[in-house]
């Protein structure tokens, strides 16, 4: 809270990390927020959370990044986890075919629980393991295009593309949000424990609530 928490910012974006257990979500988080990598980090139980403030188009964007246990499509915290999330990094391990196969299931999870307009980026992590590659870049790229996701291969270990991946998803979110947006369709009395729908749609002008008659 100290340090990071006291900086001022223009935007606050919540981004979630999802994907199978062991694909490196926590290390992506620690690489991006603290520039740390831990070869044998503990498995995540429940939720982890970290923030980092970056500049996008001259605006200060505070990214609030949530990381959760991969094994469980963690039902107990699903609603809290996805609530308010405007971006998702769907991570798989390029050296493990099964984690890529499960991407489809994670997309369904996002469809079920997250906002329909959430910005999703497919991330093939562990790109340093070239000799063990099991998922071809082209294959993933094609999948991403079919599902309208952006795509990037990263390595939390050698830090390649990690910064770029977060930067680009945050920029994308920023563009959408600043391009204008805000559908006021949601009941203001959101209660914890319910999943809510938040629209990030670009679309018709909704400038409302200016001055009254």
């Amino acid at each position: 809270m100290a340090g990071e928490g006291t900086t001022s910012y223009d935007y606050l974006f919540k981004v979630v990390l999802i994907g199978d257990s062991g694909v490196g979500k926590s290390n992506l988080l620690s690489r991006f927020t603290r520039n740390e990598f831990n070869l044998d980090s503990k498995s995540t139980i429940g939720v982890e959370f970290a923030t980092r403030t970056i500049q996008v188009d001259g605006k200060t964007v505070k990214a609030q990044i949530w990381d959760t246990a991969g094994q469980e499509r963690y039902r107990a915290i699903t609603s809290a986890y996805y609530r308010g999330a405007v971006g998702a990094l769907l991570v798989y391990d390029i050296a493990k075919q099964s984690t890529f196969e499960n991407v489809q299931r994670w997309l369904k999870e996002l469809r079920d629980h997250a906002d329909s307009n959430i910005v999703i980026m497919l991330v093939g992590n562990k790109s340093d393991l070239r000799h063990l590659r099991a998922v071809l870049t082209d294959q993933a790229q094609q999948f991403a295009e079919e599902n309208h996701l952006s795509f990037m291969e990263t390595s939390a270990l050698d830090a390649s593309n990690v910064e770029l991946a977060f930067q680009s998803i945050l920029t994308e979110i920023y563009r959408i949000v600043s391009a204008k947006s805000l559908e006021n369709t949601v009941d203001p009395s959101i209660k914890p424990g319910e999943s809510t729908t938040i629209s990030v749609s670009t679309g018709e002008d909704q400038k409302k609530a200016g001055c009254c008659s």
Partner: protein
Amino acid sequence: MPDTSARPEPQKITAMYERIFRSGAPLSKLKDAAFGGRLLSDTPEQDGLGVAGRSLAWKLFLIPTTPLTPPASQSPAKPLLESLEGRRKEYASLLLEKMRAPDGSYEENFSVPGVAQLPQQSDEASMNLQRNNPLSLHEDNPWKDWFAAVDLRKTIRQDVERTFPDHDYFRDAEVQVQLTNILYIYSVTHSDIGYRQGMHELLAPLYYSVDYDSLDPIESPDKEIVEFCSRTWVAADAWILFSEVMEDMSCWYEWREPTPPPMPASLQNQYRHGPPEGRLELKPYIAPIVLTCQRLQSQLLKAADPLLWQAMQKAGIEPQIYGIRWLRLLLTREFSLPDAMILWDGIFSCDSTFELVPWICVAMLIRIRNQLIPADYSGQLSVLLRYPPPMDIDPASPHHAILLLRQAFALYTSPNPSTGSSVAIENRNLLNIPLEVPEPQPSPVRTRRPATRVRSSTDVRKATGPSRTPQGQNISVKQSQSLQLGFPELARGLLEKGESLGINKTLMNAVSELRKNIPELASQFIGSPPPESSNYSSFPLVTERPPEERPPWEHRTRFEMEHDIADLRALQKKMGDAVGSAVDALLQDEGEERDAETIKRIRNRKREAIESLAYVRDLLKGTTTEVDEERLYGEEEYKRRRWPPTSQGGDIKQTSSPPPRPPEPAVPARPSLEHRRQKSSPPAQSLPSHPLSSLPRTPVIVQPQPELVSMKRVAHATTLPRQRSSSSQSLSNPTIESNTFRAPWNYTKSNFSTPTLNSATLPRPPPTSQSPVSMRSEAPPSYTNQMPVRQARKASNDPLGALP
């Protein structure tokens, strides 16, 4: 197995065994000692982790024996050992059964304790290769299950490899194999839960402790001790302890509705397995861990430390976010492993084993309340998800984990705020944690809007005492806003002074009405939004932002919503006025004595009134959205309204609740009772004679009649019901109401009580008192039942000026 140097000398283990099982100390005394940290040494000997005899105590506390209470003459170890031996065999046979591939083979290097020779691969001819063959596609191919089991072991293995990476012990390959086996056996025998992440970290300390206390037969001549602490059975004993712990904790790992396993029909009546009947009702499934977490925060914490609960609630912290990890891992991530083990000693020594755990969590929350209360959502979350390490404490005071246990137990036995505060006091005395909650740091603010904190010492503040209300957020407010928020304070001060001076009730009502109306009025004049609402979402809105800059989850600010409500109210008021005018018009007497000209005018007026009533109906029904004032009031009345008192802007007029003006100055004022009595009858009689052609539907004429009364009352009432706006309620009852929402003046200090500031320096004089004056000059009152309010308003000018 790790080398023996990591274990204590055998004498230490035997000494502990003697102490626990042969000293004749009753079980309750041993449990008390363990709870108070007196049973075991509290300084780990080896690897920073091991404490000799710990697993002996855990075995004693956790493993049930038959008979439950051994006769006093007998060593308590005896039945325990018997129980252990039985379960060890069970583990061995489970291993043999579950680890065997469908062709009867085992993995390489697989060994089962107590079994010298693994059963040979069966070459029986009876084996159906059609089905039993790894490549068979047959439905019943046993290899399918086997491959699923291999996958499961891989999943477990992945977590086991990541177990406590800081402790070398868990990097040992053999240890990892054993941990994987135990978890695998547990998950296949508990298929409703299976393996869930976190179990590995629960098992690991159990396994370590058993292994640490294990003895080789050559290390001690005492057969009983060697048998009890047999190194051969380390994995089995760890499995036994793990199963016992999971007996109580498995519900925290439950992730789907348990399905009662299928059983033979013959047994179904005798034995009911699985959840009791009550659980089977049609309710959305909520995982027990979530329920426990919610109970932890909204019941236990609320009972012990309402202030902290309020702060966390206000920030929108969902307890499962931190609770899941705290509970599922029994706090191994919140404390160092040796400290967590001390906590486990206490937890396991309790009879109702895991009831204490949520209370430990509450005590943990109280310990960090100074960090939680001033923090905002992300601040609180950061502290909760990275529980701060214990501070350096006086070596004379008890270990912080022991202290936590003690506090949890105190809270458990008497869950109330006084226990909560004694915990806080204890923390101050022993851990040097100050009682006073620090001032909140200025929270992150949008760059363009500098934060200005305005303070004062209003009685709202004073009431909360020196410990401060937990204003988790601190709000950046513009100066103008604080002035705006000062209005009610001023009015309230007047009210209180007035009461002491004995000013009559009517006046009081008027002032209180004024007070209640002000926040809303002011918020319209000064376009500054009131601060964000609580409970809006889990995301606190840090500052008010223009909509185009707001992140998408902040769809609508409280300001916008209040604005809409204010619009609605204004419209309602207009309609009320219109209905009022209409009623007045309809009430006009067409007596004989009037000349034809007047009668014609009156009739015309009445027709207009009915038209306007019809229009009000349309508005209320929602068939029309745009408000056409001309139609609303009728031509003449509209004209009159078009030129309002010059001194005021249009928006002020709209919100300053002008009383409905009479269409006809000549209408005599009636006593309200008479007015009401006559209201329904004369218009009803006269209506049919009116030209109705312009009205869309005839029934309307009759219908509005009963509504007229109610509408009018509503219209009349709207001057008061503004106080229903949630925010102003809390003013009269700030301490209670502030729990549920944050009315702006509840947390924004206003500088109104400073002597230099009086009404003269206000940005604008209160409009309510002004408008009636100017209006009165234009149109004399016709409504007698408006009079009290009006009088009051007139009078209210006086005290505003007269009082200092």
